[in-house]
């Protein structure tokens, strides 16, 4: 079927999402909770686009293309909401995201500056008991990617979302660390994490040495 992204016609398979169409058209749409390897989740609300005829911007990762659909990736209202969402995410972090992370890229490309809200930020809480994987819980933005990678890519079911609101986070097993959980140390969680809330031990130690 054909759809139009910022006026450019693209051919997509039935069932394709607006995000896929935008990428096919070579357009950048910010994402935080999305990963090609997993089913769309629609949680982060930064992949917003305008659809002609829709009352408000929609999450492109969970919007299925319709024949002839007009998708706008540069819609001003969608971009403003995405920027605010990213800014709110940043406002909870104790420090700006490391340069190589997906969160840093999204923030930079959306043009989000220093957050305007100076509320409580997460306190540093690290778990480095595993030989390869390190939790930096203060960097968790509850996108759910690690939990879904563990379920949908590996199938170890070791990670769980915990807490509510500001206290939302992620944990291995019954908050017992990776090694006491059903974790098989595949590292899919660290691979997908957009903030380094779960990261590789070597890279964590490199960063600790201030080498970034």
């Amino acid at each position, binding site marked *: 079927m054909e759809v139009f992204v910022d006026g450019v016609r693209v051919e997509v398979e039935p069932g394709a999402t607006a995000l896929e169409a935008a990428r096919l058209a070579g357009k950048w749409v910010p994402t935080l909770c999305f990963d*090609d*390897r997993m089913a769309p989740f629609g949680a982060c609300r930064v992949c917003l686009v305008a659809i002609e005829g829709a009352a408000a911007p929609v999450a492109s990762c969970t919007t299925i293309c319709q024949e002839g659909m007009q998708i706008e990736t540069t819609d001003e209202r969608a971009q403003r909401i995405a920027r605010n969402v990213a800014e709110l995410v940043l406002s909870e972090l104790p420090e700006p995201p490391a*340069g*190589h992370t997906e969160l840093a890229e999204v923030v930079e490309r959306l043009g989000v500056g220093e957050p305007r809200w100076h509320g409580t930020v997460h306190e540093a809480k690290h778990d480095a008991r595993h*030989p*390869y994987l390190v939790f930096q819980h203060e960097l968790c933005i509850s996108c759910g990617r690690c939990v879904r990678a563990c379920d*949908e*890519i*590996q*199938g170890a079911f070791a990670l769980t979302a915990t807490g509510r609101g500001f206290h939302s986070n992620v944990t291995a097993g019954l908050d017992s660390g990776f*090694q006491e959980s059903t974790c*098989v*140390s*595949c*590292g*899919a969680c660290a*691979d997908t994490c957009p903030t380094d809330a779960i990261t*590789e*031990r*070597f*890279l964590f*130690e*490199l*960063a600790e040495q201030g*080498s*970034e």
Partner: protein
Amino acid sequence: MSADRRFDATTTTTCGYCGVGCRLEAHARGGRIVSISPAEDGPANKGHTCLKGRFAHQYTRARDRLTAPLIRESGAFRIGSWDEALNRVAGEFLRIKAEHGADALAGLASSRATNEDCYVMQRLFRAVIGTHNIDNCSRVCHSPTSFALRKSLGLSGCTGSFDDIEAAQVLLIVGANPTAAHPVAGARMKQAALKGLKLVTADPRRIELADYGVLHCGMRPGTNAAFLNGLAHVIIRDGLTEEDFIAERTDGFEAVADLVADYTPVEVERITGIPAADLEDAAHIYGEADRASIAWGLGVTEQRYGSECVQMICNLALMTGKIGRPGCALMPLRGQNNVQGSSDMGALPDTFTAYRSVGDEATARLFEDRWGVKMGRERGMKMPEMLDAAVEGRIKAMWICGYDIAQSDPDVEHVVAALSNLEFLIVQEIFENETSSFAHVVLPAASFLEKSGTFTNAERRMQVVEAAAAPPGAAKTDLEIYKLVAERLGSELPYDGPEDVMAEIAEVTPHFAGVTYERMGRRGLQWPVAPDGTDSPILYTEHFELAGGKAHFAALPYKPPGDEATDELPLILVTGRRLEHYNVGTMTRRTGNLALFASDWLEIHPEDAEELGIASGDVVEVRSKNGRIEIEAQVTERIEPGHVFTAFHFPEVRTNLLVGPSADVNTSCPEYKVVAVSVEKTGVAERPPLAATVA
């Protein structure tokens, strides 16, 4: 990733652990690998990898890496220069050849090495040294698969692709534990099962995937043949065969139908211990599906009749027409990264590239012309024959590459006797190991992260390997070493790099005619590859690669395994692999994986444990006809009563002391999977503190 400032360079390469063939992005900083992530477009791994591929790379910079040649002098090793080492190698090889003839020399290539390495090593032995005494370590794992697939279907390889896991409705897994031994393929199977793929597992252990399957058949070790013939019995009895397919594309069905008539579910239950009703269910689940695949591992092959069982697996696919189309793959799970390729490349005593016989006049002439030499038409020695000949003094010198036969081969005492009796032994390795302690010269080699070439994965996919770091110290790539040795032996090998080798392979091998590095690119090519580069994800879509184009059924009865439980040795030992470790553990024991799994244990069923007064944590003595070891016990229901299980990753356990000389009747692949043992408590384990992570 190129914009990631944490890294100086990122190199896309292919994993050097198991046969799944994950494509990896290796990130280096300051010349060291600091991180590995999966390539998103890897055809086998699709953006995933396991703890070995992703994390277990620290061994490359371990302090005890071999970084210079070692030369034995008055009983001990000293560090030597390449010049000294090469002089010693050439001097001894030429002396032995002059005194005893070229057939007194033998080489073992490695299924861990690249296709190019294996090809060049077999050329070196055949054309430079002048003997067909070349074999590789697939002898002890999948040689029965290769033998059987060639007999039944024509080509030695998976008939489809890993993508058939998702395309299938049913997957039968026999004698394999994919989530531990082939973790990424295992994850794909598990995910497919969660999405509706019906898994049927058949193994003496209740493997993890059994928990996600519709049916688990727990059989006695060594009884696969009865199980497989039993499935055929029910399929034929209940009319689940594909008559047109049988008539048009196969030979020999009637003999199988006659033979399996005796394998009634009740009789099969008596032999295998699998309930008759479960056998009936398994046959119906497989037979009734439109698209069903069969995967198997060393639990099928490493048995006295392993090759025959692979032929029986082929029978099932042939009688139901489940071959040559999507979702209907016969899928051998290859243990090492290049089990497929090392044999494809002719590192075998009886065949040149693509399994063409050394006795075939036209093929032999082709290679004689290409290499400018004359060669014999009689096959060389298989690996077990080499060891026998070494004990008897007929083999005087060996060159063993990337293969620790003193830890991984069965009947360790025999191996040690063979190695001790050699006049000259070269071991080409990345670390000293059990085998190198018998060497006269140890040559330091590059690991897979430090060399270039290609590996062929379990789905026949030839994939590019690219160096992500330099070899440490004076270590060299295998290809460089072969060239240097050939030169000292008076022969120039005309290759500037692995691409030149592949060009020659393509030129002399119709199956690889269209293979180039450029065409392999990021996704590889599944052989056969036509001259225009078209590859073959699915084999046998039109015809089989046998005379007349028809596949051959094989009517083969069940025969008891080489070892049986007795009053003195009442339990059957099965060996296998742990998720955290890889084969002899040379690599993984030098990484953080050791902190995840520090020492091995013997799995024993609660009923047997109770009878023997054994609790988890007890140290037990395991005895077989062949030897004895001590190991900690772990009581678990993963293993069936009457059986025990352990791995062979730790040299201090020396599991293979227990395994005797019994081997596959057609290929000499050792019977690792059926060893009668006794188990007795000797003490309680004092667990050493977990080893610190190596940085």
